[in-house]
């Protein structure tokens, strides 16, 4: 469990996502207005870049085939599926977005 400073909050526009590379991880961070959320930037369907999706509430819609992924839990909400993506705790300190990266790389 280690917190890492990612980027300035203003680099992620309101209701959009951006991907960030941390080591060998590709993480999608989203600006939901009142908070930031982060998930693995790989759609469980076919690897689509979730950071490029349209946000619908606290769900992101994958730009490739419109799978819907909950940004809080990482669960796929549509279609019905047990698949999920890894989520990362986010905190903002001042203007800086920080993400908590698990020490070893195994996804939950």
């Amino acid at each position, binding site marked *: 469990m*280690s*917190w*890492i*400073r*990612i*980027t*300035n909050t203003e*680099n*992620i*526009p*309101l*209701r*959009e996502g*951006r*991907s*960030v*590379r*941390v*080591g060998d991880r590709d993480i999608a961070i989203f600006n939901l207005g009142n908070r930031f959320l982060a998930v693995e930037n790989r759609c469980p369907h*076919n*690897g*689509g*870049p979730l950071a*490029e*999706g*349209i*946000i*619908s*509430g606290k769900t992101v*819609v994958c*730009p*490739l085939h*419109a799978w819907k992924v909950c940004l809080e839990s990482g669960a796929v909400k549509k279609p019905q599926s047990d698949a999920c993506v890894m989520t990362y705790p986010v*905190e903002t*300190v*001042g*203007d*800086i977005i*920080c993400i908590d*990266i698990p020490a070893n790389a195994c996804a939950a």
Partner: protein
Amino acid sequence: MERLVVVGNGMAGVACVEQILKHAPKFEITIFGDETHVNYNRILLSSVLAGEKEMDDITLNGLEWYRNNGILLRLGVRISAVDAIAKTVTGEDGSVTGYDKLLLATGSSAFIPPIPGVDKKGVFAFRNLDDTRNILDRAQEGTKAVVIGGGLLGLEAARGLQVRGCDVTVVHLMDSLMERQLDPAGGEYLRKQIEQLGVRVALGKSTSALLGNGHVEGVVFKDGESLPADMVVLAAGIRPNVELGRKAGLAINRGIVVNDFMETSDPDVFAVGECVEHNGIVYGLVAPLFEQGKVLAATITGNRGPLYLGSKQAAKLKIMGVDVFSAGDPNAAEGAEIVKYEDPTLGIYKKLLVRGNKLAAVILVGDVNDSHRYMEWLRADTDISPMRRSLLFPEPSSDDGRDVAQIPEGDTVCGCMGVTKGAIVHAIQSRGLNTLAQLKECTKASTGCGSCTTLCQHLLKAVAPDFEEDGRKVLCACVPFPQESLREIVRSQRLKSVQDILNIYGNGVGCEICKPALSYMVDVVWCGDHEEDRSARFINDRVHANIQKDGTFSVVPRIRGGVTSPAELRKIADVADKYKVPLVKITGSQRIDLLGVRKSDLPKIWADLGMPSGQAYTKGVRMVKTCVGTEFCRFGTQDAIGAGVELERRLENLFTPHKVKMATVGCPRNCAEATVKDIGLVGQEGSWQVVVGGAAGKSVRKADLLITVESTEQALEAAELFFQYYREHGNYLERTYDFVERIGMEKIRKETVYALDPAKKGLLDRLRKSKAISYDAWQEGASPVNPTQFVQIEAMHSPPGYFPPEQFQGAPV
């Protein structure tokens, strides 16, 4: 068989005849009507005026109905006399018709106030189809219209005129709008909403004369002020048509007096509708008239028994975006408790009058979702003590819509036509109904003012096994309105951003379906002068490239008409080398695609290419494919390349409901396949055929001929007219081939190439305005809307340095 003669072919008379037909056959029926139209829905004249309905859409009983029921219909004949002794009626055509029973259903007429000048040209009443037609003929973009009367009718008329582009002022005698249905505070909320629509409101104004020499030119008030006017609509009230009743010797007060059995003072003469007075009240809304009709039908067919004991009246303003509901008499506040809520920012005002734990009256402005609940309490005289804690806001129901299971069977769902929930459920089950259209046809529910449509749909959804949404589908659950309505809302409420629409008319959240659709809508309604919100756009429209299955993008520069040059080709080749583009492909649209490009390389590639975007990624103008035409082809009869390049130049960078692919060909051999394109120009000797709505994708459809014209300029203009018309009326994601089938070519021609000059000019002006604001999206490579749009963000520490957040609180970054 007895002879029944009905005078008045209107809503109440015909509805009563429908009820009579449900009893055992007893009569040979003749109906006289002085209008020339079969029975139509008078309520919806407001919608016709506002362009939401066509005149043909509001027919209630077609000619077949009269024929199938053996009714002799005499239209355009006014009955001028009744002889109650000889039992005959005399028509203005000289005909004399004998009756055994006579039914007077003559309705009312518009009250024409005794003001000097009301007989001038350009002064209209608003009561029937002819009035509506005359008003529409007069109302043009920019016409100065004054509506006298700020009641339901006046406001609906004003709204209709304003939608038609008129400059409208409503003049009202009283100090508050709809003062009979609202209190002064409610009237004030309403005034604000009406003024927000762009209609001016002048209160406390008594009109003293209409000016003008033959034709009306202005309105003068008692206080000496005046207003210029090209037209005046009188909506100052109605007067029951009682002359025939008087001639028949009936007892008359304000209306023809009837008792609880709906009998008049003459045993063989009956009356129903707005011309009737029951217990001192003359009703002016359809719901009570239909209740009267049911009772009358029983009495007249010899089944005397059911009683008419008066009706609870409710009024609803039928203006999109201005929600007003009122029931009971809200100004009779004596001895009543008042329960009230208001929110000036949201424009919501709710007021209930409660007397002895019963609801006595209700006013709703700005939020009428609960009108059904209140109406039921009024109708059933419900003891509301158990609901005391949630009078103004119902307990949240688990359903997102109304919890239809909670509505008692006997509750009236459609107030206009008096249809209960039980009747609807029974009809759905016993007749296997699946669509709203079938439900309307079979039960008449939702054919009146339309305010119960959502409820009917919920019932269908809950009860019908194979419920299908009707043609008027809503955009999506986030903003549950049909796209036509949304366009209207966006325009009238001056909404310029997607988030505003979602906040005010939707769930505030939106999704991948509605956000791009609304983004398109604000763009087209405001001709590009909207508030662009990239978060509501699909990724392709944020980065101006087509996302591929591996998350890379493709780059297709614009090559107008497919005409390129060695220099351009060399540049493309250099770029492909420099950025190691994995695949270079000639597309099906006569241009070149560079596939497998990383997002961060996009701005650099665009800069190196120095060519504009080909919009291959968006719902917009794709390209114009051309054949060589007269340039080189030995068969060519028209300059296909010249016309194609010009067409592409005129339309490029614009957005459309779905992609638009075009082609121009020099002769009917059609080498560039113009007849399967959204818009095609097919050259022939001395003329061009302009064809639209073609497709060669998932489905194949041959394009329809729009028009044949002589010059290339005329052909380009026809293409532009259709293009803009499709932009304005197409639903998002509706290709032109579905669009032309939905609208019909005849109507499209009438509203584009055969439209009147002002309408054509309007289309072209709006197209030019959008075009002037539009720009080549690839210019955003140098100045992106969001600075990080094309940047791959890297973490601030790399290799990662790990800190718990507390540790670097306040530390320099």
